[in-house]
């Protein structure tokens, strides 16, 4: 048993690569190249542009914005166009409503904004005219839109009917030149060549892109049509407290860190928000089961999610994936929710909620004082 073991020298020569990793090249004398270390490890790399040279063709994406931002579904439509475009094809994004965000990371090359298309206005003839103007001007190979209920699904169908173009709706699978969607209420999957108008179902595109769009501004369509057959009689808002959690736009949610439920409910009422809860709070009997948010509760898609005294366990975060703005109030600065939250307030829930109520009351009082002057 005296066989000689072959041993590796743990101190054999190595090189450090820019990412700070040891690399051993057999036979090399190695050493340590300090110049390589100047590049900070794990630095966010600037993504290369996708578009090569002057565009030779276009893909058009159209979507409605809400409060100056596009939702995830619209971002997916832009990403889809960017992924399907050839290196010479530019992705044009036509936004109905204002836009305060940068769409470059989502793959937009040319962005035209129509702030005049008021947030929740109903002017299908005007919007169709704008969209058609772009279709005529740029002759895009395809028009991609999210198949949603905030106006894009409606407008996309109007566009296809107006152009007498083939349309694919509720598209669940996209490949270069091909689409697939469900038929027979989901029993059949139909495939075919990609038609001129493509309306995407949600979550059929991965939005992380290895490139960026050029993100240049484009003059929006200017055509004006006279008021037509549709008359907008305004919006009606339903009190958030009367809504199912899934539909609410503002949710104030309580976790184990909330002792005083009436204060929390007062905060929710002041914001006109719906009340949700973590599983622990529900299990303790503070809330009915239908208020639970998370993997075993409800999946919500509010624009604003105020998490009070919630640690942010994965099972809870699963339920708030679609929430755009998450604000956390937690006494623990290292709770997992702070990684998900856009704004984290470190402090006692009761104190912050009380201060919030006082602040809101002061604001109300100031408003009424101003009015009575």
């Amino acid at each position, binding site marked *: 048993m005296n066989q000689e073991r072959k041993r590796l020298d743990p101190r054999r020569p190595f090189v450090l690569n820019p990412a700070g990793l040891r690399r051993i090249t057999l036979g090399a004398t190695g050493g340590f190249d300090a110049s390589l270390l100047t590049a900070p490890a794990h630095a966010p790399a600037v993504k290369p542009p996708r578009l090569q040279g002057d565009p030779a063709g276009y893909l058009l994406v159209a979507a409605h914005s809400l409060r100056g931002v596009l939702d995830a579904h619209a971002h997916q439509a832009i990403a889809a166009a960017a992924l399907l475009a050839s290196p010479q094809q530019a992705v044009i994004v036509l936004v109905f409503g204002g836009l305060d965000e940068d769409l470059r990371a989502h793959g937009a090359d040319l962005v035209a904004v129509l702030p005049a298309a008021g947030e929740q206005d109903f002017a299908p003839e005007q919007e169709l005219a704008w969209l058609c103007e772009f279709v005529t001007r740029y002759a895009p190979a395809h028009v991609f839109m999210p198949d949603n209920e905030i106006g894009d699904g409606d407008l996309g169908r109007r566009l296809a009917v107006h152009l007498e173009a083939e349309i694919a709706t509720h598209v669940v699978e996209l490949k270069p030149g091909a689409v697939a969607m469900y038929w027979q209420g989901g029993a059949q999957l139909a495939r075919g060549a990609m038609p001129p108008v493509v309306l995407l179902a949600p979550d059929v595109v991965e939005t992380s892109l290895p490139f960026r769009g050029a993100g240049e501004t484009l003059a929006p369509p200017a055509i004006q049509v006279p008021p037509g057959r549709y008359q907008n009689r305004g919006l*009606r808002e339903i009190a958030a407290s009367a809504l199912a959690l899934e539909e609410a736009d503002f949710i104030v949610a309580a976790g184990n860190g909330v002792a005083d439920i009436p204060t929390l409910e007062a905060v929710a009422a002041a914001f006109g928000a719906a009340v949700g809860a973590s599983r622990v709070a529900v299990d303790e009997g503070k809330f009915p089961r239908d208020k639970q948010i998370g993997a075993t509760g409800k999946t919500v898609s509010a624009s604003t999610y105020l998490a009070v005294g919630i640690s942010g366990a994965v099972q809870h975060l699963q339920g708030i994936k679609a929430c755009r703005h998450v604000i956390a109030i937690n006494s623990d600065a290292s709770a997992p929710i702070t990684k998900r939250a856009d704004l984290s307030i*470190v402090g006692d829930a009761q104190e912050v909620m*009380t201060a919030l109520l006082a602040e809101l009351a002061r604001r109300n009082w100031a408003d009424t004082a101003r009015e009575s002057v």
Partner: protein
Amino acid sequence: MSPQLKIAALVSVGRNPASGAPRAARNDVLALDAALALAPQVSVLHAGDAAPALHDYLAYGAASVEVLPLPPEADALAPLAARVAGYDLILCGQRAEAGQGSGTLPYRLAKALNLPVVSAALELTVLGDAVEIVQFLPKGQRRVVRVSLPAVIALHPLAPRAPRYVYASLRAGCVRSAPAPLAPPSPPSPWRSEPAVKKPQKLKAPETRQGHARMLGAIATESKGGALVREGAAAEKARAILDYLRANRLIGF
């Protein structure tokens, strides 16, 4: 409610999502129910075969269902458009449960007849020669839209209606089929369909990164981790919340 209003409800054959059994389509039942609430006499029309599932609509209140015969695979638009020309109000569901279910038929019908079309209707009220529609919008919003008659209106699945299934009226009504017309050959469909067993694939960027970069990508958390407010009195923290909400236009004050 004006008695001389001519209302048509377009009904298709639905499909139980669990068993696949044919039945009345949920959205079309809502359309029928909304039509019956506006006028006692409603033309209930179906383009296709006189399927047994159409009897369900009798139970939901249709006095009779008129079937416009259609060769299989043919487009329902032409016979329906020809039949409903001259009607004041044409109600349909937002999306069919059988066939393509693309939700485009109301739009194509409106184009063929040169009428306005409003979808996602929850409630409708006829006001003289106009109709006012409460439209569904997500996030608890509702929009009120008015169009003049005649119009095509598609009902949203969440329309607050409670249609009742009455067996006696199923027995009392009848499904009438017009004589079959000469079938023009329908063009071959550009779509191929197969049983939906495989999950559709997400479109994503091809992976070009090498091992280490890929691993970093996989373990990196998507979320950025936003601003952290640690210091200050509770009132300042409260103001930080309100400032954030205002900056992002999440509250109106």
